[in-house]
């Protein structure tokens, strides 16, 4: 048996396959389909300090090999998470990571402090890249100073594993990655969705209530792969890669480009069993290529 284990900062992941935030609920919604304990980790739905209703319907548009979403961080807030959801999911035998969102730095800090109390949340993913909210969100992730400021403030109050989720809607994602690394991020995850738009030619109206939305799915894979490779070459902290991963080959490509772990997002909508299929496919690939450890794969691009 090959060893799929991988360490990120101080955390041992049983394998590099995680579920991406906003595409797997809190895990429980898909527990009918797969054994959650087989996963490397689950990044649960983007959470905010207060309850958020999210954006108006319509929030979704299908696009060639992808989709746009404009959910806008609908969630019941951190109190509800702690009181109602956490007790239900905390004993799932995988790493449960919370995706942290705010409109201000104070929001991020306050939310992080609340999550810090939770024993079974070993890491947070700081989302400075949500393109679907008016305030905060992506605004923090598209300039080095603002990205640094959030990470610095959060780092002060959080000693567990701090992952920062980067926006692809920037001129140089490597610069942003270096900025957050300099403020003590333990890992960066990328990419969040690309800002896109859909128009209904017949009605001449935007398809989404918010006009623009976030593009995900296989369409963005080449861009995501490029960014993972750029960031891998720019920072020392481990990279979590995502963007359009649909099968084991895609996941392996990300790891070759430099991802230590990968997250599966939109693919879950098509088939929620894909994550476990990818774990199995990765193991088979490693056997076939006579690899003992996934670390042989990470960043193994020959160029």
């Amino acid at each position, binding site marked *: 048996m090959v060893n799929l284990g991988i360490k990120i900062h101080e955390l041992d992941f049983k394998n590099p396959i995680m579920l991406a935030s906003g595409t797997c*609920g809190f895990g429980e*919604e898909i527990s009918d*389909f797969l054994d959650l304990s087989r996963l490397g980790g689950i990044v649960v739905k983007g959470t905010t300090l207060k309850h958020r209703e999210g954006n108006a*319907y319509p*929030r979704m*548009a299908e696009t*060639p090999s992808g989709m746009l979403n404009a959910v806008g961080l609908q969630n019941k807030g951190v109190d509800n998470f702690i009181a109602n959801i956490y007790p239900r999911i905390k004993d799932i035998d995988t790493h449960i990571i919370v995706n942290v969102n705010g409109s201000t730095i104070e929001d991020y800090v306050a939310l992080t402090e609340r999550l810090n109390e939770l024993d079974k949340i070993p890491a947070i993913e700081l989302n400075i890249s949500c393109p679907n909210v008016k305030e905060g969100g992506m605004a923090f992730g598209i300039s080095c100073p603002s990205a640094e400021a959030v990470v610095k403030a959060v780092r002060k109050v959080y000693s567990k594993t701090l992952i920062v989720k980067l926006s692809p809607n920037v001129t140089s994602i490597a610069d942003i990655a270096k900025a957050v690394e300099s403020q003590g991020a333990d890992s960066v995850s990328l990419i969040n969705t690309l800002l896109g738009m859909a128009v209904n030619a017949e009605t001449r109206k935007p398809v989404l209530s918010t006009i623009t939305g976030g593009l995900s799915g296989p369409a963005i894979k080449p861009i995501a792969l490029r960014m993972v490779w750029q960031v891998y070459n720019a920072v020392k902290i481990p990279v979590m890669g995502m963007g359009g991963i649909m099968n084991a080959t895609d996941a392996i490509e990300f790891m070759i480009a430099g991802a230590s772990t990968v997250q599966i997002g939109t693919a879950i909508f098509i*088939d*929620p069993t894909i994550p476990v299929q990818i774990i199995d496919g990765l193991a088979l690939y490693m056997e076939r290529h006579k690899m003992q450890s996934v670390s042989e794969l990470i960043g193994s691009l020959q160029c």
Partner: protein
Amino acid sequence: MKKTVIDLLLLKNKQLNKDNFLLKLRSPVPVSDIFPGQFVNVEIKDAQEIFLRRPFSVLDVDYQNQTISLLVKILGRGSKKLTEAQPGVQISTILPLGKSFTLPERNDRIILIGGGSGVAPMLFLAKLCGLDPENVHVLIGARSITDHIDIEEYKPFGNFYFTTEDGSLGEKGYVTNHPVFTNKLNEFTKIYTCGPDLMMKAIGRIALENKLFCEVSLENMMACGFGVCLCCVEDTKAGHKCVCTDGPVFNVNDLKW
């Protein structure tokens, strides 16, 4: 029944009229616990530019033979492609999804109002509700007789009424103009409806005015179908609710209609 991703064998694909097809699929495992109002999310294979699955209500289930029927109306590329599938192919589905209608109780006298492909869950409910057919009234609306689908098989389960916009079958006009609806509405203890939004809203508002129990089955744009993407929301009195998991069946009292 646990939600599952499963390949079903297409047994039959019958064209009912210009746009509507009846698909009968066999499941390799028992299909107990699939109820009227629930739906399946169907993968459309080998279609350029189709990425997401497409949701379809369950029209009927044969628990013994492990078959599921769907009524598919051609709307765009995905539904078109699906109606071209040949018997013998495997079709990947996710099922069962969503909440079903509240089944009536023994003494209920119900009216089921279906429009367009919305007749599917209505027929299923008529068949499954277990009431004396005398107490089951099914009102079906369509644009024209040519859009009607054959409901012969479901005749024994209730009294059927028809409206068409052009008067080519049944009463001329909308379902809300039919005498069984206009004159007898207060005789019913429960109203169930599925069909075009405008039709359901008209019915829903009348039900609200008359303080009648009324459940509607909503349709909207879904990405996942099982509650993880939060794309399919309806703005209810209790805030945004997912049509795929909190619905598709809602009580009109909970909606902002």
